[in-house]
């Protein structure tokens, strides 16, 4: 397993795609941090009925943007680490070097968590760096010393790492690189947001929306852009964490017994 992990580390270190994703994520999160910090510090118009977000809630909304809106980046990086093996057929020499397919998948999942931590740290720091000065100047303060803020911020880093783990699972299920990218983008940018809003509006499905992966990850973090806007409720933190992890594990296990059991041709 150690050799497999070193091999995976070298695969990451010798390719550039995830660096591009990381840099784009940093820029995007810093930008969103600025925009969101401005938004939450605007006073709602009289009689608009909108609930102002202030204090710690404002800070949490801004600082956990990485998980709320930036999780597509580690998810893509994780998925592409697997689909690239199929796209470039490097899975053939990889399985020749070590034919144990569970070891291959396990090393990929673990190494993706490490890369995901990098996405978590960079993405979270970028949104904090973008939003904190504005919150401090225009709002109720940056709240960077508060445990109520720091714990969700740290968990946001953890959640983003798990997104990379989930990504490897997605890539194992959908080995076609283009298809995997399309599915990830469509699901994260379109399907899940609509589902969460739509299910929240239908009484029968209201309870199910919180089991969607994005909602579960927000439950783990303990802060949600959606929830703070009053649009959906979340699971308790431990339950959310378990549901979120279960997605990654489920995808990986299904992938192990479908894609990785098949013939490699």
């Amino acid at each position, binding site marked *: 397993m150690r050799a497999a992990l070193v091999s995976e580390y*070298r695969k990451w270190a010798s390719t550039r795609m995830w660096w591009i994703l990381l840099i784009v994520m940093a820029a995007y999160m810093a930008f969103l941090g600025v925009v969101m910090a401005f938004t939450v510090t605007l006073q709602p118009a009289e009689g608009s009925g909108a609930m102002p977000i202030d204090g710690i809630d404002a800070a949490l909304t801004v600082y956990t943007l990485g998980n709320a809106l930036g999780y597509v980046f580690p998810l893509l990086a994780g998925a592409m680490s697997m689909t690239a093996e199929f796209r*470039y057929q490097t899975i053939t020499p990889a399985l020749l070097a070590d034919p144990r397919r569970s070891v291959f998948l396990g090393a990929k999942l673990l190494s993706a968590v490490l890369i995901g931590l990098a996405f978590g740290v960079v993405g979270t720091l970028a949104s904090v760096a973008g939003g904190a000065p504005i919150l401090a100047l225009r709002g109720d303060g940056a709240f960077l010393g508060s445990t109520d803020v720091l714990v969700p911020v740290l968990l946001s880093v953890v959640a983003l790492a798990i997104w990379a783990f989930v990504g490897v699972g997605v890539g194992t299920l959908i080995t076609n690189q283009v298809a995997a990218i399309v599915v990830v983008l469509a699901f994260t940018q379109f399907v899940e947001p609509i589902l969460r809003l739509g299910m929240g509006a239908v009484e029968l499905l209201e309870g199910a929306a919180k089991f969607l992966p994005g909602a579960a990850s927000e439950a783990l973090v303990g802060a949600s852009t959606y929830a703070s806007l009053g649009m959906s409720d979340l699971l308790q933190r431990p339950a959310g964490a378990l549901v979120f992890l279960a997605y990654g594990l489920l995808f990986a296990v299904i992938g192990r017994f479908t894609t990785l059991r098949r013939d490699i*041709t």
Partner: protein
Amino acid sequence: MISIDSLTKTFGTVRAVDDLTFEVRPGVVTGFLGPNGSGKTTTLRMLLGLVSPTAGRATIDGREYAQIPQPARVVGAALEAASFHPGRTGLDHLRVFAPQVGVSDQRCRELLEMVGLADAAKRRVGGFSLGMRQRLALATTLLGDPPVLVLDEPANGLDPGGIRWLRELLRHFAAQGRTVLVSSHVLSEVQQTVDDVVIISRGRLVHASPLAELAAQAERHVDVVSPDAEALKAVLDAQRWSYAPASHDGTRVFRVADVAAAQVGAAAYAAGVELHALTQTEVELEDVFLRLTGQTDQPDAVQEVAA
């Protein structure tokens, strides 16, 4: 020793490999030959544990590939020259697999030098020519200094100099007592390299022997032309040679089977028959190969499936 034992693989209704049995002995280079789509790559992938057989077994010294601990130290295999991440450098490609093979970066550099890619160590594989990729694939197989080499179409994309270099390298490995199995869809490409041949067609074994025995199957013949066709016929009949008249640009040519030009010339001279042409057709192994694999008739229905 590689043993392929009653190996069968079906894809849907197609039997890509059909009850195939042969052995590859150490110390020689064995050519694994067949037209595209005849099941060569599928056979090799089953041997290497990438494809699971429908029936039968493929073993290396009695063990299946997946049962060998650190298999890359026992078997070096290259399948297709396309298994590279284009963004990775030549050296990084080797370094990715080095931990599992259990070798150092130094060994990776040595191998790049050995296959003539030392200058390309820091270049991305995306910019490599097909020949360079073949060399890099070969370097990957040699990482663990394995006693068994399995190479799928290694000569594809190599220039004539590269093919010659590969031939000498493979002969050298065989001389060291290693087992070397090389696939190709063109016999002439490996004719000067291999000692043994295993020929398959439509997933079935059609011939396995030392190359010399295959060559013995090649039919030589002599084309002979005389202005006095009747006299020549009488000579050929007197010798009890089998021949067939053929027409060549209006001249009558007699194609005489399984004789040497000197025999025909001597017989004609002794009978006083004037000859205008006497052409020996040398052993054409490729023709034997094409005949064995049925490529002289019609296209193979299985061809597209198993490549």
